[in-house]
């Protein structure tokens, strides 16, 4: 790769990822953070560990670009990804005006005015694909396709860059990589 190809675009993005313990919020956070680093951006995240991981509310903050604080303040998130729809009222205050809420729900959730809402029944999709634990990647794929990647108002990275991050994570290939890529593609297909 030549030196100027990976030159950082001017990106400053704050993302909140919300779910309950066991849904794979932490995995999604790190995947996005790794994609940010591969894209040449500084990244800061804040994760939930400990007792909350036993099925309680789990939230990750992800800040891409030049930030100092690992936490997103209320009203500042560009994107809010919600894997458990009952968390929407809890974490909705973090979303900025004009931001986008992407939620795992059969029908769009009411999130008040000033935000775009995109819903997908990622549970049903993951179950039908025989991969209930890949619901996180289904939602991420859907989100990337629906709000766009590498474009204004969309994610700082594209679906292809997430695919690249997955390939680096499972460098040896194998069934876990295949499962992850199919789940991502399933989400992308439903968001396109």
């Amino acid at each position: 790769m030549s030196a100027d190809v990976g030159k950082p675009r001017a990106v400053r993005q704050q993302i909140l990822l919300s779910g309950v313990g066991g849904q794979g919020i932490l995995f999604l956070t790190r995947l996005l953070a790794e994609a940010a680093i591969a894209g040449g951006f500084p990244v800061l995240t804040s994760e939930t560990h400990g007792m909350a991981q036993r099925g309680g509310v789990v939230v990750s903050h992800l800040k891409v670009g030049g930030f100092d604080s690992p936490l997103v303040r209320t009203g500042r998130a560009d994107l809010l990804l919600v894997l458990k729809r009952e968390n929407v009222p809890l974490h909705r205050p973090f979303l900025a005006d004009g931001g986008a809420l992407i939620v795992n729900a059969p029908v769009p959730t009411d999130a008040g005015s000033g935000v775009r809402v995109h819903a997908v029944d990622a549970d049903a999709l993951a179950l039908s694909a025989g991969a209930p634990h890949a619901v996180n990647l289904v939602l991420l794929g859907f989100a990337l396709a629906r709000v766009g990647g590498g474009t204004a108002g969309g994610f700082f990275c594209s679906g292809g860059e997430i695919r690249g991050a997955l390939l680096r994570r499972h460098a040896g290939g194998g069934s876990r990589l295949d499962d992850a890529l199919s789940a991502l593609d399933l989400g992308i297909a439903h968001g396109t």
Partner: protein
Amino acid sequence: MSDRILMQGNDAIARGLVAAGCAVAASYPGTPASEILSSIDRWRKKCGATMHVEWAVNEKVALEIAYTAAITGLRAAVSMKQVGLNVASDPLLSAAYLGVTGGFLVVSADDPGPHSSQTEQDSRLLAMMAKVPALDPASPAQAMALAGTGFDLSEAFGVPVMLRPTTRVCHASQDVDAPPFRPPVREARFVKDPARWAATPAFRRKLHDHLAEKIAEIAAWPATAPIRVNPEVSPAKAVVASGVAFAHARELFGELGISDRIALYQVIQPYPLHAAFIDHLLGTYAEILVLEESAPVIEMQIADRRRVLGRMTGAVPGTGELLPEIIERLLSRFAGLPLPGRPLFAPGDGRRPTLCPGCAHRSAFYAIRKAAPAGIYPSDIGCYTLGINLGAVDTVLCMGAAISQAAGFDYAHRLSGRQVDIVATIGDSTFYHAGIPPLIDAVVQGARFVLVILDNGTTAMTGNQPTPGSGFGAGGEATAAVDMEGIVRACGVRFCRTANPDLLPEFVALLKEALVHARERNVAVVIARQPCAMVVRGTAGMQRDVIVITAECTGCSHCVTRFECPALVFDEVANQVRIDEMTCTGCGVCVHVCPVGAIRMGSAGEKRS
């Protein structure tokens, strides 16, 4: 592609320690510090470092092991959560007097909030009490750098040094450049000096004088002096911040545009605060706002009370985490700006944590309530604290207290002429950590209660670290394993039986037998042994049985409220319970829970491949 890699704060601390030549590392797991030791072992293997890395039986033992390596001239570190430092405080305070010859770092991770702790205490206060310097990183990258600085400081003055990250550093991740690993060339060499290493009180006074001199010198050590962020301006006000509160403040200085009218300093070493810095602050600024977590450690060292605003003056909230929204308000007020209109985040009622589907603790708790419905249930620290959801946990104090509290309840009620059934629960890791002395005490004093040791073979809550009974160590290497039944019997317990709590009817019967023994004689121990569901779930080739809810379900909710398995979901429309296929492990314990027999195992044909 960038050379930078994503590192969690705990991983970065581990890398910093290994790169700086740490030779001995010990820990007991506890959120938010748990990942430090497992990361040390990963970096040890990756760098090819020669180290002793261990999960110790508790924090006191861990600190003593690492400290002793540091008096042979090696570099050593111990890591723990803040309440673990309470357990290890006895050796720490003495070690400060005796000092070290090799670098010795005590990593104590605080949890303002608290997010996953019993208290939001500030380890820096214990550093002050012990008279050891404390370093306060603001980010994973800085924590990694301060691991090396801490060793240098420790060796420059021959004192233990505390590295105090908080949850927002430990569990933040950041892109960092890993420092290179240089293999240390030291050999352990213990130089006998009983007047120092075994000092009697007369010598301790001299050692204390010497320690006070060292602390005065450390308050002038250049490498840890405070950093001025915006030296180009000369305003009348200053913000002095440390830890992640500094990171929040720095970002907000930019966003609020106040860098030209307020000076911003980062304190890296809150204790001892640099003496020249205190003079500079008081000689320069009319008002000083101090932002730190979670106690006013910096604030109390700045002597002029009229000019300092902080937690002691009430300008900064006295408890709780300093979230960036709170700092935004404090800085806006301090700068004379209008306050932001957006409300603070109020953590609502979101879903509460619960035991995992298929967790055998759930079976044990359900059985305890069946066997001793009017009992008192002292419990302890671990996943099984969540037995509170099942009404089977009445008290949680600190590590090991379930057993002493069970005894305390017995003595107190007997004084009043009453006998109550007392069933205490404690996990295997917690039992080894702090449960053995209180069990000995209970036997000696003739206490009457049932102790259920929930033995899932792992330290589950913190990420499945091994216990002394596991038979393997921090890096998966084989170790000796202790025999739990043998320990219980050696404590003098006469009734000690082991069973699988998932065999619910049999387990209830065993508990009833233990209760009879406790009422008539003395302490009875039941070991509830079944592996952690999180560990089993990772086992390849596991087949899941199908659980079926039949039409007989009356919608009574007994299974949902009393058994509270996340895989049992009450369907309000159908007024019946259904199985959540996403989470059900097929353990089948709920079959014994339904009062009308409406839950059954699926037939062979219904089995999933």
